[in-house]
C-alpha cells in the first residue's frame, strides 16, 4: 500500500496487466513518451515498440487498430488523448466496436479498453474539456467506467482490461493528480458495482468523477447543519448499479445527482429518471441534478470557475430539498 496519484495508479494497472498478459498492448498518439497525462510513463522503456505503439494523428485508424486486433485475439488499450477527440473516432467506437458482436450473431469478442481524459483543466477551452460519457452510455455493447480516485482507478482499469467487452475508460482530468492509498499488487474491482463513499442517512448524492470529491466536501459542510449525506460513486456508468443507488434512496428519501458534464441529457438524467421511477414511493422531495450549464466550455479562468459544478452546487441542491 502506497499513496499514489490516480495517474500513477492507472500507469500501474496498465503495467501489471501488460506484465500478466502479453496480448495486452497500448496504441495511441505519443504514448511512447508517456502519453499526454503520463499514464504510460515508463512503459515504452519496459515493453518496447511492439507493445507501446505510437500512431499518426489518425483517430479512426487508431481505434480501428483496436477493433481489428481485438477481433482476432489481442487485448488492445486504445488511448484517445482528450475526450473531445472521440468525435473523429465515433464510427469505429459506436458502429463497429460496440455493435460487432451483436451484428455478427455472437462470433466476435472484443476486449478493448478505450482510455480517454475528460473534463476541464486550466483553461483548455471548448474543444479540450469535454465530458461526453452520456453518449457512450446510450450505446449498447459498450461499458463505460469513470473512476473518481486512484484506488478505484487502478482496480477498475485492471477489470476493464480483463473484461471481454469494449470498455470506455474515462479519467476525469481534475481527479488525476489526486492521491490515495493504492495497493502495489494487482487487483480488480468488479465493473457495474457502485461504491458508497460516505454512509449517510438524509440525502443520497450520486456523483461522478471529480464531483465525488466535491460531494464529500459538501457532506462535511452540510454535516455542520445536521444534514447527513450518503455519497455514492457509480464508478461504472454503463451498466449502472441502480440497485445500490435505489436502495440508498429508499433509506434517505432524498437524492441529488452530480456530474461535470452539462446537465441536459447527461448521465444524471438517466440516474435521476431511474431514481424517480424505482424509488418513487420513497421520495420526500424531487431528485435534483447538478451539472454544468448548457454552454460550451469557456476559456477564461473566471468563467471556467463559474462554469464548473462543484461542492457549493451540491450544497445548494441539497438545501433546496428542504424547502
Amino acid at each position: 500500500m502506497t499513496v499514489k496519484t490516480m495517474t500513477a495508479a492507472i500507469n500501474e494497472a496498465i503495467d501489471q496487466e501488460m506484465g500478466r498478459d502479453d496480448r495486452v498492448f497500448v496504441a495511441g498518439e505519443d504514448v511512447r513518451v508517456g502519453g499526454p497525462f503520463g499514464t504510460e510513463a515508463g512503459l515504452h522503456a519496459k515493453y518496447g515498440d511492439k507493445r507501446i505503439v505510437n500512431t499518426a494523428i489518425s483517430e479512426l485508424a487508431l481505434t480501428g487498430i483496436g477493433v481489428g486486433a481485438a477481433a482476432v485475439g489481442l487485448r488492445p488499450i486504445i488511448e484517445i488523448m482528450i475526450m473531445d477527440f472521440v468525435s473523429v473516432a465515433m464510427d469505429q467506437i459506436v458502429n463497429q466496436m460496440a455493435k460487432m458482436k451483436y451484428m455478427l450473431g455472437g462470433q466476435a469478442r472484443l476486449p478493448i479498453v478505450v482510455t480517454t481524459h475528460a473534463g476541464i483543466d486550466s483553461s483548455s477551452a471548448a474543444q479540450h474539456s469535454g465530458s461526453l460519457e452520456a453518449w457512450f452510455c446510450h450505446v449498447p455493447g459498450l461499458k463505460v467506467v469513470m473512476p473518481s480516485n486512484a484506488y478505484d482507478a487502478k482496480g477498475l482499469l485492471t477489470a476493464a482490461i480483463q473484461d471481454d467487452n469494449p470498455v470506455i475508460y474515462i479519467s476525469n482530468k481534475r481527479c488525476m493528480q489526486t492521491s490515495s492509498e493504492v495497493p502495489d499488487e494487482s487487483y480488480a474491482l468488479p465493473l457495474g458495482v457502485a461504491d458508497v463513499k460516505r454512509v449517510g442517512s438524509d440525502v443520497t448524492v450520486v456523483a461522478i468523477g471529480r464531483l465525488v470529491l466535491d460531494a464529500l466536501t459538501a457532506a462535511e459542510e452540510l454535516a455542520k447543519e445536521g444534514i447527513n449525506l450518503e455519497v455514492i460513486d457509480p464508478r461504472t456508468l454503463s451498466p449502472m448499479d441502480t440497485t445500490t443507488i435505489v436502495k440508498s434512496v429508499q433509506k434517505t428519501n432524498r437524492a441529488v445527482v452530480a456530474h461535470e458534464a452539462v446537465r441536459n441529457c447527461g448521465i444524471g438524467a438517466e440516474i435521476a429518471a431511474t431514481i424517480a421511477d424505482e424509488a418513487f414511493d420513497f421520495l420526500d422531495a424531487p431528485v435534483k441534478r447538478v451539472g454544468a450549464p448548457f454552454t460550451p466550455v469557456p476559456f477564461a479562468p473566471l468563467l471556467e470557475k463559474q462554469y464548473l459544478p462543484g461542492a457549493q452546487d451540491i450544497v445548494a441542491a441539497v438545501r433546496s430539498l428542504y424547502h
Partner: protein
Amino acid sequence: MDLTNATMLRMFEQMTRIREFDERAALLMEQARVHGSVHLYCGEEAIAVGVCEALNQDDYITSTHRGHGHLIAKGGDVERMYAELFAKATGYNGGKGGSMHMAALDLGIIGANGIVAAGLPIGLGVAFASQYQENDRVTVCFFGDGATNEGAFHEAMNMASILKAPMVFVCENNGYGEWSKTESQTSVTDIADRAASYSMPGTIVDGMDIAAVHEAAIEAIARARSGGGPSLLECKTYRFYDHVGRDFGVLQRDPQEIARWRARDPIKLWREELIAQGVFDGKTADEITAAIAASMESAIARAEQAPDPTPEALYTDVYSETQV
C-alpha cells in the same frame, strides 16, 4: 503465370457460384422473401475470386456492403449466407446481421460493413495483430472507389504503410458510388495513384480478367507476407446492376455503357479462356453452371425452411459474459 487446371476450374466455379448466388438473392429481394438491402456483386466476381484464390485459408479479409462475393470467394457457405438473408437462426450471423454484416470469423472473414470504408481501419487492426502475433497471415481489405474518399481510407492507408502492416488494399472501382459517377466524386482518375501518398505500390488491373487480378494479387500478397508491407490494387470493374438490387430505377445508366461492360463479363471471358485452353468444353461449362445453379436452389430451399431466431436472441450477444 501458370495456373493448374484445377485452379482455373475452381476459379470458374467460384465466380459462377457468386453470380448464381446473387442473381437469386436479387430475385428473392424482389419477391420480398429476403430482407433489407441487397447489394449485388454481379459483374465484379473476378476480383473477389482472383484475390481470394491467392490467399491461404487462415488469411483474413474485410468486406463491404457489397460483400456476398467476398464471402463466397473466401470459402463462405452459401446456405448459411442465404439463411442470413432469410434472417434465420442458422445464418452466419444468426439472422441478426443480414447482408451488410455477414461475417465468418472462423474463415477469416472479419465481415461485411454497412459503413463505407470502415473495413479499412479494422483490417489494419487485424493485420497489426498478425504482425504482433508473429504469424504470417495476410489481411485483404476490399472496398469500392467511393470509399477512397472517406477519411478512414486515408488514415488506414497511412498507418498501414507506417507499420508495414501485412495487408493488401483492394479497390473495386466499378465507376459508381450509389448513383454518382466516380469522376464526379473522386478527384483522381486511377485510384491506384493514391498509393503514392503512402509510399505504397499501387497497381491497376483489369478487374474483368481474373487471371490478371489473380497474378497481381499473388504478388501483392507475397509482398505483404514477406514483410514488404502493404500495397494497393485497383481493379477496374463494373456493377452490372443498380446500387441496391437489380433496378432501383433511380439512375438510368447509359445502356451502351452497360452493354460494353456486359461484353466483358468476367465469367464469360474466363469461360472462353478455359475453353480455349482446353480446360473444359462449352458443354462441361454449362453442366458446371447448371450444377451450381441447382445447388443454389437447394441451398435456398433449405435456408428458407431453417428456424427463425428465438425471441431471446434479441437480447443475447450484446455483451460477452466472459473475462480473462
